[in-house]
């Protein structure tokens, strides 16, 4: 195991949502770590708990959600027991988040420059006099052409890719230690998508920042991440360095997910879908939540407890019968 102190450490996290139709066990025993200068991809289908994990780590979980077990340490701070004012100080300065659909995340009736200045004045060292200059610098750092003019633009005057650059400028303006990017390129064009991901990667390397990339696109995670955490129905089922995960996936779900992703070469016969769908998280579930969809399922899979095992250094899998 890595000896360095991670920027973000999530340990044995359980999150429940109390809804009218019952308790949804959204996360169970979720553990992962993110180190300085590393980009970690969290990959899974919609509803697998990717975003809930990230939101909990930032302390912005919906009030209906409750952490019932576990611990989150972010740069030495115990997130779950910290006061709201401490968390407010932390957000923006030590950890920032980029959301999907930048157009809805930005304030439509405020110029983008002012929105960046807001962050700088709240969390950074900017004063009223220096805010404009610093905001323009932030715009420059995300390679926005003609930043002086764009500073006074409203979000609707800018393209989707440009808005996402503004979001990145805003998130990185106070030089956070950790950046969480939640599906940063969904809804953008392929060419813009590539440019935005290149930019995030470049800035992360330049600033030696820890980055979490949440995505449903395994191919994109493979392209940019150093390590990949695969989630299914609120469980982390496998985590490994990217090259190792792709060379030898150990969990049947990871292998299936790879088979389902269309690649450039090959024909339609080479891709295969995954039977069934995510289980209903309100019901009593077997220890392995993938068991109903799994072809390798045997009686041994139903005997608790199911724990993660380290097959090789840094490669964890939560499966009784790994491939």
């Amino acid at each position, binding site marked *: 195991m890595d000896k360095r102190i991670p920027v973000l450490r999530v340990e044995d996290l359980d999150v429940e949502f109390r809804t009218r139709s019952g308790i949804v066990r959204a996360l169970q025993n979720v553990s992962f770590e993110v180190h300085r200068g590393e980009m970690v991809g969290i990959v899974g289908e919609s509803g697998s708990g990717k975003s809930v994990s990230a939101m909990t780590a930032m302390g912005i979980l919906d009030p209906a959600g409750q952490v019932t077990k576990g611990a989150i340490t972010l740069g030495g701070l115990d997130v779950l027991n910290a006061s709201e004012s401490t968390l407010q100080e932390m957000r923006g300065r030590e950890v920032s988040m980029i959301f999907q659909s930048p157009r809805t995340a930005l304030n439509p009736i405020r110029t983008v420059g002012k929105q960046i200045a807001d962050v700088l004045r709240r969390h950074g060292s900017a004063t009223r006099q220096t805010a404009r200059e610093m905001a323009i610098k932030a715009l420059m750092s995300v390679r926005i052409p003609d930043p002086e003019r764009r500073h006074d633009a409203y979000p609707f005057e800018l393209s989707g890719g440009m808005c996402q650059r503004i979001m990145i400028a805003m998130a990185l303006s106070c030089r956070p230690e950790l950046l969480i990017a939640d599906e940063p390129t969904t809804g953008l064009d392929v060419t813009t998508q590539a440019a935005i991901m290149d930019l995030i990667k470049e800035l992360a390397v330049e600033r030696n920042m820890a980055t979490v990339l949440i995505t449903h696109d395994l191919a994109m995670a493979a392209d940019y991440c150093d390590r990949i955490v695969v989630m299914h129905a609120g469980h982390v089922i496998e985590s490994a360095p990217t090259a190792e995960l792709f060379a030898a996936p150990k969990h049947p779900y990871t292998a299936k997910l790879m088979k389902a992703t269309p*690649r450039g070469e090959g024909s339609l016969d080479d891709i295969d879908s995954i039977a069934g769908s995510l289980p209903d998280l309100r019901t009593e579930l077997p220890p392995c939540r993938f068991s109903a969809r799994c072809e390798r399922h045997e009686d041994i899979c139903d005997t608790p407890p199911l724990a993660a095992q380290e097959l090789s250094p840094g490669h964890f899998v939560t499966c009784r019968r790994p491939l």
Partner: protein
Amino acid sequence: MTALLDVRDIRKLYALAGQGGSGNPLLRWVRTRLTSAVDHTPVLHAVDGVSFSIDGGESLGLVGESGCGKSTLVGMLARLSDPTSGDILFAGQNIGTVPSKQFHARPERTDIQIVFQDPHESLNPRFTAFDTIAEPLRGLQGITDAAELRRKVEEVAVQVDLPLQLLSRFPHQMSGGQKARVNIGRAVAVSPKLLILDEPTSALDVSVQAVILKLLVRLKQELGMSYLFVSHDLNVVRLLCDRVIVMYLGQIVESGTAEEIFTRPQHPYTRALISAIPNTGPGAVERVRLSGDPKSPIDPDPNACRFHGRCPKGEDLCARAAPPKVMVNATHYAVCHFAEGTAQDSGAEND
């Protein structure tokens, strides 16, 4: 053999009022009479001289970024909007001249169907799966007999692998994959000859994407349809399409067989699109990255390449002359000054 769909030099231009010119003819007349202002109404070129054809049983991919005119083109082909000029020949009949408001009475209305993007949004939330599939059967085929309607709908459900007990469910009671099946079922219920698919898998999880794609391939064989497949996902286009056209700012910049487009792209924009696909496996291609945004489609300069400014290759020539259509071979062409092949003089004359 005549093509099923033959689109010839189709254009859709929108006159923009408000700046310079006014929409009101009287006001405009007064203004030009009393002032020396030049009467100029800016024109947005949404689709600007697009020609292509689809043969029976063929699937054609249409790719390009948002704002390039894909949806406007699809709208005109499905006769939801009227082209400004140009012909749409469907099975030999010119349907481009039929006003869109009267198109519903034409027999071709049944033959062209669309599967809209995002089944979560495009299904009527107050219609059960049965209602959704029955709607075109009632409206276009005039089936009113309840028993026959039920038999027909169940037949379609079987065709798209939708379990019959789901027919009574509303969209919010179904999963993404099931909704996609209903959406496809509605479109194929009237046995169209041409099916237009607008990003059919982009809203689905990877785990169900493959099965929907396989369903589409099977349906095409069973029903002998032609596909126009509009998509962002180039990997999916490569799997499904025989031929591909690439659009940029209202014009086709490259056209060829899927194999040619993906292995020997000629236009720099196509190259950028292909190199933007994440993880293309071993031996990754050189990365071509575009900077900046596309030019404005309002009053584009007729004597310049529309890609100039973003193009990694851009030279003086590109800003002075519209690129010619260069035939690489009989099936493959690119509209670029630097494509390799024999130039056809269809663009503006070079000076």
